[in-house]
């Protein structure tokens, strides 16, 4: 039964990983702080995978990723706030269903917006697309800042509070596994090949009968949907949203992760996301309190050195076996 086998292949790593982490945290081997950081790393990885699909595989230079992340976060948070409430004494199953629905709605909202933004702007090329999406990111930040003037629940510049804490280890891990599966299968499908063809040479791709514009919109929309889902998970992990979390500088963070890992390389994105989050937090613990400001001095230095030594990303074109195409597995 290949179908059941495939399901088992997806569920097993999820069950093993989340079970192990649940066990470790229940036994106090991992303290709650690190569990939270792990979940954050999962969320960042989902968002970075989305950007890798946009930039790494399709070659669309997007600097507005954090804006879509924010749209997903606000949408999902608003929905759970309306239908679950912060007290959370409803049945677990119903809450879970609403949460799942909100996450998907967050992804959908980000995707719809990406489609609306993408159809006009994706006609631009390279750097101009980058600056247009960067501009879009700044516009969204301004809108988030002023959101309370049309929907008071969103909080505006003061931040959105009172979001139920729903994201746990199972949710974060499940999200990540699902994201990896979808992206892996997508990039090795005909769609994925079309996207890579566009990245390599748009004119040649068009000559081979690929509707390049349509595929670019598809790639952009799909990648942004991942950002939206990741945003929803983030909102219910930290239970507080502030517009500054979604400004254009955060788009650079995700971009750095994707480039550090290697464009069009899923392994690299995964490793770089976890390394990035844990490095940021690890240095908070490792450095003596007086030198905590050195964190952001060391990180750019590390970044520059990595880029000078490995300009094509940490992993180049190598992938973990489970992320390769079936032909090579």
């Amino acid at each position, binding site marked *: 039964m290949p179908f059941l086998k495939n399901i088992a292949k997806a569920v097993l790593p999820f069950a093993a990983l989340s079970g192990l982490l649940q066990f470790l945290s229940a036994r106090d081997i991992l303290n709650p702080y690190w569990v939270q950081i792990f979940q954050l790393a999962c969320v960042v990885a989902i968002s970075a995978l989305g950007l890798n699909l946009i930039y790494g595989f399709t070659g669309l230079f997007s600097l507005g990723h954090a804006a879509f992340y924010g749209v997903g976060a606000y949408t999902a948070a608003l929905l759970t706030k309306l239908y679950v409430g912060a007290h959370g004494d409803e049945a677990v199953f119903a809450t879970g269903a609403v949460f799942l629905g909100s996450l998907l709605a967050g992804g959908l909202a980000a995707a719809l917006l990406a489609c609306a933004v993408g159809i006009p702007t994706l*006609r631009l090329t390279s750097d101009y697309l980058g600056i247009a999406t960067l501009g879009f990111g700044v516009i969204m930040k301004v809108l988030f800042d002023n959101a309370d003037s049309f929907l008071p629940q969103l909080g505006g510049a003061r931040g959105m509070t009172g979001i139920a804490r729903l994201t746990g280890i199972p949710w974060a891990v499940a999200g990540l596994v699902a994201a990896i599966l979808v992206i892996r299968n997508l990039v090795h499908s005909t769609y994925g090949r079309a996207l890579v063809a566009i990245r390599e040479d748009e004119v040649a791709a068009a000559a081979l009968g690929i509707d390049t514009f349509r595929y670019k919109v598809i790639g952009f929309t799909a990648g942004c949907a991942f950002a939206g889902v990741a945003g929803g998970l983030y909102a219910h992990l930290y239970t507080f949203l502030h517009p500054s979390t979604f400004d254009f500088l955060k788009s650079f963070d995700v971009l750095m992760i994707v480039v550090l890992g290697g*464009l069009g390389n899923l392994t690299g994105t995964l490793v770089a996301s976890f390394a990035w989050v844990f490095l940021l937090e690890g240095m908070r613990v490792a450095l003596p309190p007086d030198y905590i400001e050195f964190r952001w001095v060391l990180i*750019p230095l590390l970044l520059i050195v990595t880029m000078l030594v490995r300009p094509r990303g940490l992993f180049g074109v190598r992938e973990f076996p489970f992320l390769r195409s079936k032909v090579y597995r």
Partner: protein
Amino acid sequence: MYALIALGYTMVYGIVRLINFAHGDVFMVGAFLAFYSVEKYHLPLPAVFAIAAGGSAILAIVIERMAYRPLRDAPKIAALITAIGVSLFLEYFTALHQVFGPNYYAFPRPFQVVSLEIGGITFTNIQGVILVVTLASLGALQYVVYRTKVGRGMRAVSHDVVTAGLMGVNVNGVISFTFGLGAALAGVGGVLYGIAYPQINTFMGVMPGLKAFTAAVLGGIGSIPGAVLGALIMGQSETMTTAYLSSTYRDGIAFVLLIAVLLWKPTGILGKTRTEKV
């Protein structure tokens, strides 16, 4: 003032096709150099401008040498990420207590503020100084680019790097010079910023840097008159938004404008004629 920063972006982009994200931070360093030379040593204004411009230029040349030159043949994105890295490094390194410190500093007024009224329009001598210095810098730039040997080299490199090298242009020297010249303009811009808005800190370069870049794209990146035009449009639209709508939407309007222009003319207002690129 946006114009001065935008010019640096547009020149660097015209030559090496790199969005130099660290440019806004070079601008910040220029402002801080000016701050120290006024606050500690009470230098006269021309000397302040000279120190800020010179210091920024040296900084930019060092950055180009250390971080960008080894990556010139690497994928463009690697250089871009390095530029972001340099930008973050400059911001946070200078924010350390041992360097400039993370606080806001009041920029001392180097001269008394005087208001004049001519024909119903009020303006201060600060605005006068800004206008004069900007115009003088633009004039000097125009002279350098179109009337000197280095300027001819810059135009040649921006047109075609390889051919320019074959024709005996010292490509590396020209690129260093371009970075230095752009940074000197940013340094002058930093001094003007300090005079106009007397409060500086190490993160002040982010927003002006971004907007100046937007201005450069708006006018057509790579074109000097385009950068000035884009900067003028940006400045006007922001002032108008603050006056007629609400200051909270100020940062957004510039980008709405940008996207609108890009959709209408994808290479910016003056971006068509490639021969004009510097």
